């Protein structure tokens, strides 16, 4: 057999004969090599060990994974604290994000048990495509919109919406992206009454979801924003700014719906959380945090 086709490691060792300067001098690599290899191995093995432990523990077995719209960022933790008192057996883990994105991920069978959307269309479509439990659709809240400015802003949201938004000092107006964020669609609808939209379209900046939109204004990057009341009421936002609610007649009712995911690993947990959201206690918290009760509670 030709020596040249021996195992690569043999080649490595032999290379020192041919190029001694390169291979034997930098002792750093000789010492670092085994170190790196050990590190890599421990990483891999420890990682595996950790994963199996996780899935085997009883806590993880009763985990409820929730995909929630960004406007629930503040109300949901409060609700979950109460839910935990009643159902200590469930460990709820929440991922907040844009409803459209999460709908796409659930349609690819993302491992969520319950989906709390910022609208009712996304859950409906998930049921249609077979990714939501057919009779589990439930409206749980109605979203409200506000005009929000920082405390030191020259703009006064107490004036009419037209006056406030047409003010040249409102150079950047933040709304959520109407292509996929329900709050963005509602904002555009509110602006389209009285043809306001055309006049300010070039001053709009679009947030990926409503939480990011709120942040645009709170950070001062935008002069004014159309955001969820649920976010404007959050401590950090309400301390930093003023807001004025946009009358509900100006945009289609923003019913927020939820659905139990068809491939849910923990349908019982999802069911329990759904029931709690719709209970008097859950609804009270949602109202405290700036939502209205949906007309037809299931």
């Amino acid at each position, binding site marked *: 057999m030709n020596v*040249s086709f021996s195992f690569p490691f043999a080649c490595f060792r032999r290379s020192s004969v041919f190029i001694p300067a*390169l291979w034997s001098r930098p002792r750093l690599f000789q010492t670092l090599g085994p170190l790196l290899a050990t590190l890599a191995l421990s*990483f*891999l093995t420890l990682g595996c060990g950790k994963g199996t432990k*996780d899935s085997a523990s009883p806590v993880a077995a009763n985990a409820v994974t929730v995909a929630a719209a960004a406007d629930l960022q503040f109300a949901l933790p409060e609700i979950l604290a109460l839910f935990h008192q009643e159902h200590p057996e469930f460990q709820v883990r929440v991922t*907040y994000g844009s409803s459209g994105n999460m709908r796409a*991920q659930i349609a*690819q069978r993302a491992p969520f048990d319950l989906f709390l959307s910022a609208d009712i269309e996304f859950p409906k479509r998930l049921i249609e495509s077979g990714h939501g439990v057919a009779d589990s659709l439930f409206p749980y809240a109605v979203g409200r919109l506000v005009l929000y400015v920082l405390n030191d802003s020259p703009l006064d949201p107490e004036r009419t919406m037209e006056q406030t938004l047409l003010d040249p000092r409102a150079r950047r107006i933040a709304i959520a992206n109407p292509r996929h964020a329900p709050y963005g669609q509602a904002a555009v609808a509110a602006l389209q009454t009285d043809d306001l939209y055309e006049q300010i379209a070039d001053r709009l900046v679009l947030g990926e979801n409503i939480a990011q939109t709120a942040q645009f204004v709170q950070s001062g990057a935008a002069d004014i924003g159309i955001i969820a009341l649920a976010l404007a009421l*959050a401590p950090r936002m309400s301390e930093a700014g003023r807001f004025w609610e946009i009358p509900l007649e100006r945009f289609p009712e923003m019913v927020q719906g939820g659905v139990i995911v068809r491939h849910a690993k923990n349908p019982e947990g999802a069911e329990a959380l759904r029931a709690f959201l719709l209970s008097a206690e859950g609804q009270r918290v949602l109202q405290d945090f700036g939502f209205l009760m949906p007309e037809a509670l299931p």
Partner: protein
Amino acid sequence: MITIDWQAFWLTARLALITSLILILIGLPLAWWLARTRFRGAVFVEALVALPLVLPPTVLGFYVLMFLGPYSPLGSAYEALAGTLLPFSFPGLVIASVLFSLPFAVQPFLSGFRSVDTRLLDASVSLGAGRLPTFFRVGVPLAWPGLLAGFVLSFAHTLGEFGVVLMVGGNIAGKTRTISISIYDSVQAMDYATAGWTSALLLVISASVLILTYTLQRRYTKTWLRT
């Protein structure tokens, strides 16, 4: 109150290391071939490898999600074999990371191999060393600085990637929530203190990795020049 997500740090470090190791296995032969081949179509391969550099991460993430999802041939084959889904899992993240970090490994590898004097390689082959020994005994040792740079850049890039990871991983705590996504979460929750400290920590780690590498590279190159 600052609540740094250490689980995310651990997960990200593991992801970055595994990704870089896999990229050595895939990237070295690929870069070697690209550096040595006379095949004209190689430019297409090179462009394809560099594509993640210019593609928006969300576009890449969307494609990877569709490519790995349960309704794609690859995704359904994996599900049949492993019994679990590829997206929204750690193995899925590894595949996505390997794809989007590919140019960060292959480009430095390639420039490392291109900097090697071809006469040395030709001499090695003509003296009967064969292709594989030439690669390991001549190519790799001479291209070391570039290979190290590729390893470290792909590692550092995986540490910080956001768009693809969000799209393919789905932001699930302990499974696919990396540091950059945990920072995004903190910002969304307006927990700026946590976001700030986590970001600072990530910055320090990334900078240290780069500084360490460039120090090694410099020392190594000098040794080489002296002899």
